[in-house]
């Protein structure tokens, strides 16, 4: 099963030569990532919990700054390249803070008005010096979780000119390991902004939320009357509501990239196993029950790959209609990943059901991915809103 169709998009490429160059670039990035992750992912510590990929390795790889502009010592690439890394992290079911820092953190910062504070932070993230987490709605309810109002001296001594933040967000990716937290908040006029706080700021509490999927780190962020200076309340560069939506789309799509990667890994593992495990005097892969199930997995993954490629291309090129492609990719790929991982467990037979066999790691990660940033039903509901009235141009392009 080599890299098939639709390897993450070709945004920004306008000539066939550009497209080919980009494909080649992605192939290299993918090979390097796969190789690195094979060596480091999947290890467990004394407590049998997965050991995260070494942060210095991530920093050294340059992946943390893929989307950071070159002038801030980033790679000046797009989400298309980030998607390649996410896909490989999913394939390895790797534990890492990549999503929180390099995908959501950088993504949020890039949506903000440029400024010294923001730029400094982007550069620090690219260099791996600062780890970020973004507190944004993680489930089906997309209510913005934090509120900001001007701080008064009653909030804190000498708080004049600063801002007071309140709110709470659950299931924040990579929160426990973050050096800084970006809170998506509403300002007093109801306009979304981003507030930067540190986990040890007074009034800020970060609590780990262990989940069945041990490869992910999630945390609850509670902010109770924290006071920040005015320079830590950042405005979005363009339409703030739209910016939040784009950030949520990015989060959903990032999880879909991960899920496609893990589904591919599960199909490959199942094909390998079915080719060697013998029962009734034959490799089990020669039985139609196994072979046809693998074929169905292959079809699901092939379709998911196309939908994901469309989503990645749309997000990477800042397509204003990206939400449609994102919701298609998120709903389809994340359902498919659970089904594929479940079939993988089934077709691995007894060994598939053991802890040692490792299939469960993928199934649990797929299940969490299905729930993160909008369950499939929520994304389908978003798509369905378009059906109520005829569109001006009904063509589905």
């Amino acid at each position, binding site marked *: 099963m080599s890299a098939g169709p639709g390897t993450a998009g070709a945004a920004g490429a306008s000539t066939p030569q550009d497209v080919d160059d980009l494909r080649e670039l992605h192939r290299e990035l993918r090979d390097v990532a796969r190789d690195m992750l094979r060596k480091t992912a999947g290890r467990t510590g004394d407590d049998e919990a997965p050991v995260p990929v070494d942060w210095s390795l991530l920093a050294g790889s340059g992946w943390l700054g893929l989307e950071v502009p070159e002038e801030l010592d980033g790679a000046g690439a797009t989400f298309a390249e980030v998607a390649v890394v996410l896909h490989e992290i999913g394939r390895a079911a790797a534990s890492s803070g990549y999503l929180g820092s390099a995908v959501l953190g950088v993504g949020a910062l890039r949506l903000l008005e440029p400024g010294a504070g923001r730029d400094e932070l982007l550069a620090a993230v690219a260099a791996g010096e600062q780890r970020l987490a973004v507190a944004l709605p993680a489930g089906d309810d997309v209510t913005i979780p934090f509120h900001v109002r001007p701080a008064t001296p009653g909030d804190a001594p000498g708080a004049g000119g600063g801002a007071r933040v309140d709110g709470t967000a659950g299931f924040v990716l990579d929160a426990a390991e973050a050096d800084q937290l970006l809170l998506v908040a509403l300002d007093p006029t109801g306009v979304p902004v981003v507030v930067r706080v540190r986990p040890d700021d007074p009034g800020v509490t970060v609590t780990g939320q262990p989940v069945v999927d041990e490869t992910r780190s999630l945390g609850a962020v509670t902010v109770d009357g924290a006071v920040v200076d005015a320079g830590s309340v950042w405005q979005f560069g363009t339409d703030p509501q739209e910016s939040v939506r784009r950030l949520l789309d990015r989060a959903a799509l990032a999880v879909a990239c991960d899920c496609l990667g893990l589904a591919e890994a599960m199909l490959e593992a199942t094909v390998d196993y*079915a080719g060697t495990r013998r029962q009734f005097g034959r490799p089990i892969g020669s039985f139609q029950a196994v072979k*046809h199930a693998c*074929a169905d997995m292959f079809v699901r993954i092939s379709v998911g790959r196309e939908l994901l490629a469309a989503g990645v291309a749309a997000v990477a090129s800042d397509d204003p209609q990206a939400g449609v492609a994102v919701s298609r990719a998120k*709903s389809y790929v994340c359902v498919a990943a659970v089904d594929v991982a479940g079939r993988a467990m089934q077709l691995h037979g007894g060994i598939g059901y053991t802890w040692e066999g490792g299939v469960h790691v993928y199934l649990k990660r797929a299940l969490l991915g299905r729930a993160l940033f909008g369950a499939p039903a929520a994304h389908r*509901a978003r798509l*369905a809103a378009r*059906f109520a*009235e005829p569109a001006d141009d009904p063509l589905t392009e």
Partner: protein
Amino acid sequence: MNTSTEDLAEFRAEVRRWCREHVPADWRRAQTVAGDAEFVAFQQAWFQELRTGGYAVPHWPAEWGGGMPAAQQVVLYQELAAHDAPRLVLGFVSIHHAASTLLAAGTDEQRARHLPAILDGEIWVQGFSEPEAGSDLAGLRTTARREGDGFVVDGQKLWASGAAHADWCLLLARTDPAAPKRRGISYFLMDMRSPGLDVRPVRNAAGESHFCEIFLNGVVIPAENLVGPVNQGWQVAQATLSAERGMTMLELAERLGNAGFRWLVEACRGPAPGGGRLVDDPRVQDRLAELETEIAGLRALCLGLVERHEAGTAGPADASVVKLYYSELLQRTMDFAVEVAGLPAHTELRKPASSGWESGAWVLDFIGSWEWTIPGGTSEIQRTIIGERGLGLPREPVVPA
């Protein structure tokens, strides 16, 4: 030809203009009650209309009158579907299977003889399946015996769609009965006016009779009508399959997305039996969103297959993936359409000739969807192909006879 966003938009505008001017008004009603002769005449006329517009064989090489990039073909098929243009049903085998076989494996003489003729309306039929060789083409029993300057063919073909109107036939016949099953088969171009040939229509489950049986009794085929080397017919047939699949599916995927699915949504916007509209029912919305997503995936998959085929990077099971996925998605979509359309859908007793696989006569469309999951290698066979050729899983062990 360039396929930048701007160029495609301009091309789209051009196709839209053409469709508004050339798609016959109200052809559906006429084709719903059309007899055979009217159907054939309408199809031939529409083919020539498309040809005048430059849209009849966009997928052919430029030198033969095509040369349209895949991205433009997608736009063309989208607009034809959205404007509810009639489909090329009668000429389907001619412009796809026959042409791709001739282009890939034919001689210069064969191409020169037939490709222009196809443009002028020559109709082809595919003569592959037999009573004992359904999904298992290796079981082929029709024989072609070398005799002098030609071959003499005896046997029987089944599921030959459109044979009653065909001028020529793509024929597989066994030339070496002693060879192992998939060897010893040759590929011929057979003139349907040859003596010894008898065609009888077979009614299908939807009540239509486009499928035929072809009885072959001592039919003589001149040696120059052999395609590829003797006894290599199975390989020729396989080699052209992938090419055909991508190109035919490109159109069908856009039909499903921009005609079938769109009508389904429109139908759901009408008043529902118990009041309100179906499209406001969250259960219906959920299913529509799911189907639209799957169709979006299909459309991308088909375009991808054409592009990879052009680039020479298509995988060995890609054509099977597309065939299997389209077949079952079409079936699921039609099943849902039947369900939401309720009792009134059952009173549509004929689907218009010249329409797509989703004509809006949902019950018949649903039943017609088995024409996709059974012929041309059943869904079960496609899964085996995907498992073995696509994933490299071990083959079913050979059973001692």
